[in-house]
C-alpha cells in the first residue's frame, strides 16, 4: 500500500467542480496516512462511486483523519479492480452540498484518472527496479575487477613444458582463481581454487587467499604446510558459511617431479599413454575448521604425460535436458586428447556441443594444463637437454603469413648472432615450412593457427612448426625434384618446398599424431660443410 499512501499524500487538488472557470488558488490540505489494514480501504475497494465521509458509518482511524483534514467527499480510484488511490475533496466553496451532477462528474473523472495514475505508478515502480538492477550489475563489475586483478597476467615460460590456462567467469561471478608462483631453485607453485559463494564477498576472500598463498609459498615450499598455514590464517577471518577449496602443487620442471596437497578441491587428472589417473591427497577446505592438517603426496610427470587442474564449472555444467557434463566424461576426454592448449580447446568445444548454444554459464570455469614434451628422437641428447625456448607464437593460416613467421623467428634468434648466410637459410626454411603448414596442414583456414616454437642450445637453433593436419601419413624420404621432367612438361613445375627446406637446414624431422603435424628444423649455430 506504499504507492497508495504516497498518492494520498500528494493529493487534494480537485475542488469546485462547478466553478472551474473562476480562477482560484488551490487549497493544499495536510497529507493523510492510511494504514493498509484500515477498514476504509476495504470499503473504498468495493464502493461504486464517490463516498460522503459525513454519512459513513465505519470505525476507521483513516476516516477520522480525513475528516480532520477537512475532507468531505472521497472518490476511490479503481483500476482493474484494484484500489490505487483516492480523490479527496473538501467542502464546496459555495458551502452547498455536492449535487448529484457533481458526483456524476467526479465519478467520470475518477474513471479516467485511475488508469492514468496506475500507469504512472507502474513507471515509477519500473524505474526503481532498473536502479536495483544497475546496482547489482555494478557490484558484479566490482567483483569481476577484483577477481581479474589477481589472476596471473602471463603463463610461466618453462622449456619443454606446455603450460596453458583458461578462466571464464560466470555472469554472476563465482570465486575461481588460479596462480603460478615462482619458487626457489626454479620450482613453480601452481594453485587452483574456488571460493564458495559469489560476488564481491567471494572476490574479497579470493584476494585474501591469493595473498596468503603468495606470501607463504616461497617460504614454506611444502604444499601441505602452505595449505595448513593458509587455513590457520583464513579460519578466524572468513565470513560464516564461506570456505575455499584449493589445490596447491609444486613442480620441478627439470625432473617433472610434483608435490601436492589438496584442500577439498577437484582431483587433478594425469594422462599417461591414454590412461587417466587422479592425483589424490586428502584435506578439508580452507576456512572451514581450525587446526587442520593436509596430506602431502608426490608424483612424477614423465615426458609425454599431461596434467589437468580444473574447477567445478566444467564438470558440473548442465545440458539442455538437465543432465550434467560430469567427471567421468571429463576424465575420458583427458585420456583421448593432447595436453596443453589443445586439451583446453577440446574440452571447451565438447562443453559447447554438450550444453548447446543457448547455455548460460552457471559457474566459473578454470582449467590449467601442463604437458611435458615427449623427448624428441631427432635431437641429440645433449642438445635437447640444454635447449631453451626463445619464442613461441602462432600465426593464422592465411597466405602470406609465412613471411610474418619468418620475420618473428629472425627476430627471436637475433641474440644468437647467426652469420647472415645461415640466417638467410633459416628464414627460407621457416617461411617454406610455415607455408606448407598453412596450405597443406590447415588448408588456408584463417581460423586455424600454425604454432611456431623457437629454441636454442649451445650448438643449434631448433624451430618447430606445427599445424592441425595430423592423422595423415608422413612422406618418407624427401625426393629430389626431377627438373628435367619439369622442363619437359612431364611434371608440374611445383613441388620444391620440402626439398628446399631440407637443403637449408642441417636436420629436418617430420612427426605427426592424431591431430597435429610438426616439422622440426635444426640449424647448427656455426657453419660446417653445408654450403654456407
Amino acid at each position: 500500500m506504499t504507492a497508495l499512501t504516497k498518492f494520498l499524500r500528494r493529493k487534494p487538488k480537485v475542488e469546485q467542480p462547478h466553478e472551474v472557470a473562476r480562477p482560484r488558488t488551490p487549497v493544499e490540505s495536510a497529507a493523510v496516512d492510511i494504514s493498509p489494514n484500515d477498514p476504509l480501504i476495504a470499503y473504498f475497494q468495493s464502493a461504486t462511486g464517490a463516498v460522503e465521509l459525513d454519512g459513513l458509518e465505519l470505525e476507521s482511524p483513516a476516516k477520522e483523519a480525513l475528516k480532520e483534514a477537512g475532507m468531505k467527499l472521497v472518490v476511490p480510484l479503481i483500476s482493474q479492480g484494484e484500489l490505487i488511490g483516492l480523490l479527496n475533496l473538501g467542502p464546496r466553496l459555495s458551502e452547498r452540498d455536492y449535487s448529484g451532477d457533481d458526483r456524476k462528474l467526479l465519478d467520470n473523472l475518477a474513471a479516467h484518472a485511475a488508469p492514468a495514475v496506475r500507469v504512472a505508478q507502474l513507471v515509477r515502480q519500473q524505474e526503481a527496479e532498473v536502479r536495483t538492477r544497475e546496482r547489482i550489475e555494478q557490484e558484479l563489475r566490482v567483483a569481476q575487477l577484483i577477481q581479474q586483478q589477481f589472476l596471473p597476467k602471463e603463463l610461466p615460460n618453462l622449456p619443454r613444458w606446455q603450460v596453458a590456462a583458461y578462466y571464464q567467469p560466470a555472469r554472476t561471478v563465482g570465486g575461481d582463481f588460479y596462480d603460478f608462483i615462482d619458487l626457489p631453485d626454479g620450482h613453480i607453485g601452481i594453485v587452483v581454487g574456488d571460493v564458495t559463494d559469489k560476488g564481491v564477498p567471494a572476490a574479497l576472500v579470493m584476494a585474501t587467499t591469493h595473498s596468503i598463498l603468495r606470501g607463504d609459498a616461497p617460504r614454506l615450499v611444502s604444499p601441505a604446510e602452505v595449505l595448513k598455514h593458509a587455513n590457520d590464517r583464513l579460519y578466524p577471518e572468513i565470513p560464516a558459511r564461506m570456505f575455499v577449496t584449493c589445490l596447491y602443487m609444486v613442480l620441478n620442471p627439470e625432473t617433472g617431479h610434483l608435490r601436492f596437497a589438496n584442500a577439498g578441491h577437484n582431483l587433478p587428472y594425469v594422462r599417461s599413454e591414454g590412461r587417466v589417473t587422479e592425483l589424490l591427497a586428502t584435506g578439508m577446505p580452507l576456512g572451514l575448521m581450525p587446526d587442520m592438517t593436509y596430506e602431502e603426496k608426490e608424483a612424477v610427470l614423465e615426458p609425454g604425460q599431461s596434467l589437468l587442474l580444473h574447477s567445478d564449472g566444467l564438470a558440473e555444467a548442465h545440458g539442455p535436458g538437465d543432465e550434467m557434463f560430469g567427471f567421468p566424461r571429463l576424465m575420458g576426454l583427458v585420456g583421448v586428447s593432447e595436453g596443453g592448449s589443445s586439451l583446453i580447446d577440446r574440452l571447451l568445444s565438447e562443453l559447447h556441443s554438450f550444453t548447446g548454444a543457448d547455455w548460460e554459464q552457471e559457474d566459473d570455469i578454470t582449467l590449467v594444463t601442463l604437458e611435458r614434451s615427449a623427448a624428441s628422437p631427432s635431437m641429440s641428447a645433449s642438445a635437447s637437454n640444454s635447449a631453451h625456448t626463445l619464442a613461441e607464437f602462432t600465426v593464422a593460416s592465411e597466405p602470406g603469413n609465412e613471411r610474418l613467421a619468418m620475420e618473428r623467428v629472425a627476430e627471436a634468434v637475433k641474440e644468437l648472432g647467426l652469420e647472415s648466410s645461415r640466417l638467410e637459410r633459416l628464414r627460407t626454411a621457416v617461411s617454406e615450412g610455415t607455408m606448407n603448414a598453412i596450405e597443406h596442414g590447415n588448408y588456408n583456414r584463417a581460423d586455424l593457427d600454425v604454432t611456431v616454437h623457437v629454441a636454442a642450445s649451445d650448438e643449434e637453433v631448433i624451430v618447430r612448426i606445427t599445424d592441425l593436419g595430423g592423422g595423415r601419413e608422413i612422406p618418407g624420404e624427401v625426393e629430389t625434384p626431377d627438373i628435367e621432367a619439369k622442363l619437359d612438361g612431364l611434371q608440374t613445375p611445383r613441388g620444391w618446398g620440402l626439398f628446399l627446406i631440407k637443403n637449408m637446414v642441417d636436420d629436418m624431422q617430420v612427426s605427426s599424431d592424431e591431430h597435429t603435424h610438426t616439422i622440426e628444423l635444426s640449424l647448427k649455430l656455426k657453419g660446417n660443410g653445408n654450403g654456407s
Partner: protein
Amino acid sequence: MAAKLFGATVRSHDGVAVIDLSGEVNAGADARLDAAYSEAVATGASSVLLNFEAVDYINSTGIALIVGILARSKKERREVLACGLSEHYRKIFEITRVADFMHLFQDEQTAIKQAS
C-alpha cells in the same frame, strides 16, 4: 605484414630482352611474370635476361614459376639468363639445379656480353 608487390617490366638492351623483376617472387607473381615473358618474346629477341636486382624474396612457388618460364623457353629454344641474384638465392638456384638451365651472372653488363 604488407607484402611488397611483384613487378616485371621489359626493356631491350643490345638485342637482349631484359625483364626487370622487383618485389616478391611468389604465388602473386604468376600472371605478371608470364605476361612479361610473352612481352619479351614479342620483341623478337633470342635471349631473355631476368634481372633480379630489385627482388627481395623468392619462395618455392616463385621457383616453380621460374621453372615454368624455363620450360616455355626450352620448347621455344630461347636462351634465358639471370643476373642480380643475392648470394642466398644464387645458392638456392644451384641447389635446385635451376642454375643448370639458366646461366647466372653477377650483373647485367656481364650477362649481356655473354648472351649468344
